[in-house]
């Protein structure tokens, strides 16, 4: 792949406007708080605007931004005081118990596995992009998702039997 130098402000703005909700909701899975997640996304995009000249184009722009967003969300967790609020997710599918089981199973995953699941199945990133976002190789992404699947399957079977 031939690298490029820099991302344009227009590209970042387009990504922000089209994917803000996805960034904010996945970030909330790290911060545990929607308000702080939104702030992390705002800070991350501000960082991306400032650093856009250093984007090398080795992978998709979105993957590069995801890494900054996840760093910003994790940085928020650095604070000494835990967030008081923990958002209640609303189940609207008529199967609240199934959602609760999945929520339990996801919550018990290590953070990297959980984030990989959200990036793959909610943000629709491919393995290479997830690897870029998490700072790991595509092979490690595959292993991480495989471990997550095994843990989720085991947990859900345990709950349902």
């Amino acid at each position, binding site marked *: 792949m031939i690298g490029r130098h820099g991302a344009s402000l227009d590209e970042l703005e387009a990504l922000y406007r089209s994917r803000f909700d996805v960034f904010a909701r996945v970030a909330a899975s790290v911060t545990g708080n929607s*308000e702080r997640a*939104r702030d992390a996304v705002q800070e991350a995009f*501000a960082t991306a605007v400032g650093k856009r000249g250093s984007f090398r184009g080795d992978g998709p722009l979105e993957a590069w931004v995801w890494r900054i967003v996840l760093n910003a969300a994790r940085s928020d967790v650095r604070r000494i005081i835990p967030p008081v609020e923990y958002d209640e997710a609303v189940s609207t599918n008529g199967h609240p118990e199934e959602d609760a089981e999945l929520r339990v199973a996801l919550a018990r995953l290590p953070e990297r596995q959980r984030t990989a699941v959200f990036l793959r199945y*909610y943000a629709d990133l491919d393995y290479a992009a997830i690897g870029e976002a998490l700072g790991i190789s595509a092979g490690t992404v595959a292993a991480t998702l495989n471990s997550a699947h095994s843990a989720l399957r085991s947990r859900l079977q345990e709950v349902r039997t």
Partner: protein
Amino acid sequence: MTDVDRASLDRILPSTRGSADWEDVLRRSGARHGSRRRRLVVLAAAVLVVAVGSGSAIGSVRDFVLRTGFIGLPPEGATPSNPASGKLEIWYWAHWFANGNDGRTRAWVYADGRLISLGGPDRPGSANPLSTGFLEQRLTSEGVELLRSEIAATGDFGSPDELSPPGKPPCPSGVSPSEGDCQLPTPEPAPDAPITVPFHTPIVVVGLGTLVHVDHARDLTRLYARLSDPGSWLPASAWADQDVRAYVASKYAVCYSGWPPDERVEQSRIVSLFPTSTRDLLGSATERQGPLFGSPGHFRPSHEYCFDATTDEARALVAALDDAGLERKGASRLNYEIVDGGPDPKVSLYLEPYLPHGEITCSVCG
């Protein structure tokens, strides 16, 4: 694996608070770049400086009082809080609720009447939408005593070890403590139930100790409301000067650490990443244990290197860092991060003002 699909994750993830705001992104980005911008900020801050007569016999001497909080260093010429040191009488965190939001206010009350606070709901004089900055008001001795009495009458005092401990991380929605390594969020206590003060909102009266138990939860809620906004209930006679001004410190702590901060990095390695002109000064820092790092149940001590700097020394350091192109980060504290070719922060450096009792606080905590 049919259980994990976009629809199910869509139902599980918390909904977004607030809408997209690209202008806010650009504002945040613009605030960090360019000396011209910084000069404009300083100029704007200078415009906000309100000159007030000292009232002293020396008519030509005037104090420059900032009526708006600031983050980092004060504009040139701002008068430091007087006197430079003070005897701490009371300090507290108070949990406030307002307009659908909540947060925590910190305050320090001194024997000379100074009430220095950080944080609060929609306070006039705030530095920015995310932080008030350190703000100062002046109580009379009666005001200090009224505050002390209000706290003293609320409950029992003891050691900070008796506060509700941080324990394990809060359980996500739908997860029981037996299922995960977590604890249920503290339920809202019945108003008439006794309550132990949460660890994250300590309330301390020098000579009495830390407020640990309250007979009725509603009394703690009431106390929080009063401590968050003393102006709402203290009489006029309690105030020597209720007008808010920015607290201007006489010296600053400069601290730096590797990332993540719980991993100790050799001082020389960190210092070598900073501009040459700053290395001698930064090398004079001594190691200390910084604020806890991590999440509930997984707090770890951080390792950082700190030294004290006068306002002029701090200003010279900041100028050198800015001139070297280092990026300022954050809206709640003057903070720099050095990255090494990627988005991960490798080294961070921050400045915190010393409070009159000779300690610093962690502005970004909480």
